[in-house]
């Protein structure tokens, strides 16, 4: 490979861009451990009391649990209906109309905030569903396109003749799917899970209209809290959210990867 030289100014620019990208996150991290009642950086003193404070505020404790429940359930449901859809789109391509795969592009064309508002009108108010259920529907729709598209992309490179070979050798179709097809698209499923989970846990625009008395999500609670209190608790809860993101990536990669390999 030929390596063309890069102009030193361009390298300097890139360094500045990365400082710009990382700086604000480091500042949040610093502000979260500062032993002051106001947000500051660099931190003055070192304390973890703002992290303790998160759990002293019941609204945070509640919304953390709601957000986790929502993310797991919405991602699980989206994978449950999304994987078969992705399979069908690739396996039965000739028999299914072309508009079918376009259906899963539609959620991308509809702004999230419009989806949230429309669900509020048609489902939450129109059908009088409980708040959590409406949120679950919204989050599931939010992450479904990721699930279908990412799994579909990894199925696209799967050789379906392997599956046919198994079936013709007498393996029942459902068993074949779980023992032959699914392990082969493992990485796609893991990637879809991570993307969907993180999208759900960080979502503001769709949840905005769907939260209600007593039931809210963590990002919406943070937004509400910032407007009243400007203390380091917000920084520490932000750090918690960052850690969660990192943890999900690491845990899913490891556990799911290993158990799938063991099979």
């Amino acid at each position, binding site marked *: 490979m030929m390596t063309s030289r890069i102009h030193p100014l361009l390298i300097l620019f890139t360094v500045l861009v990365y400082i710009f990208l990382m700086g604000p996150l480091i500042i949040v991290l610093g502000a979260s451990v500062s032993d002051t009642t106001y947000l500051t950086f660099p931190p003055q003193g070192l304390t973890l009391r703002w992290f303790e404070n998160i759990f002293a505020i019941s609204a945070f404790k509640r919304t953390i649990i709601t957000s986790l429940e929502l993310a797991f359930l919405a991602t699980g449901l989206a994978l449950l209906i999304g994987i078969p859809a992705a399979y069908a789109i690739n396996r039965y391509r000739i028999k299914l109309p072309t508009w079918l795969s376009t259906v899963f592009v539609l959620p991308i064309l509809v*702004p999230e905030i419009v*989806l949230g508002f429309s669900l509020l009108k048609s489902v939450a108010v129109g059908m009088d569903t409980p708040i959590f259920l409406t949120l679950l529907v919204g989050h599931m729709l939010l992450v479904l396109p990721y699930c279908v598209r990412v799994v579909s992309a990894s199925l696209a490179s799967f050789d379906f003749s392997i599956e046919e070979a198994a079936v013709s050798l007498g393996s029942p179709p459902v068993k074949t799917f779980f023992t032959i097809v699914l392990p082969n698209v493992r990485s796609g499923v893991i990637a879809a899970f991570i993307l969907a989970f993180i999208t759900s846990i960080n979502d503001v625009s769709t949840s905005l209209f769907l939260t209600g008395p007593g039931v809210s999500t963590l990002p919406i609670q943070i937004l509400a809290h910032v407007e009243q209190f400007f203390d380091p608790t917000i920084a520490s809860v932000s750090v918690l959210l960052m850690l969660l993101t990192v943890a999900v990536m690491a845990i899913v990669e490891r556990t799911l990867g290993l158990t799938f390999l063991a099979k």
Partner: protein
Amino acid sequence: MLKRFAGWWLAGPATLAVLVFLVLPVAATIATTFGEDGGIFAPYIAFFNSGFRRTVLWRTIEISLATTAISLVVGFLTAYVVSKSPGKLKSLLIIAAVFPLLTGVVVRSFAWLIILGKNGILNNFLVGIGAISEPLSMLYTQGSVIVAMVYLFVPLMILTLVGVLENIPDDVVQASSSLGATPAATFRQVILPLAVPGLIVGAVLVFTGSFTAYATPQLLGGERQMVMGTLMYQRAMVSFDWVGASTIAAIMVVITVAVVLAMSRVARRLNPMAT
């Protein structure tokens, strides 16, 4: 029978979910804006007759265009350097771009509140070095919203464009330089045109994302820099003007769909690899 329709059985639940919980409700939202007294387009006429709402729409377009333009330039130059970096450094740089992308919008916007606030880090620093005598009010300006939005979208742009730049065949670049083109000419005449489809995809993502954003303009722009997203929330949840909010929703959908369709046509036409 079951076998013949196997594809439909498998794709059915997901398709139905999208149709019932996305297409229908959104269509219903748009439909309510046409059933009003005073003519079929009454809510739209009301929207465009209001100087305030016109200002909001225009401001949203301005912020989105500025965010898109800055993100394109910054993202492209950075992606170029990343794509040329040696293996290990490259993966590190990619991870460093993925991490902010996976951190939520609220957290990333909140960070800019700490930086740009009246007693924020930037003001303290500038006063500290004596560049200014008293703190500037940087929050709740169009600039603060744009800075935070650029921060939001640059990682997305970098990742989109690194993928595109890596797909440019080495032979093409080598052919250009062996035929005597200077590195700058190769960059301008070979690499840039080949990256155009990627630049368009990135631009569409950033523009539609900023046009419909809520959290960032809410935190950094507040009431003073109202945009379509925050105006829609205010109409729906503060004024309970659901027709007004639905009208804003419809305008957002139309602009998003129009931008996506128009740009995908442009991308197809400008793709130099397509014949």
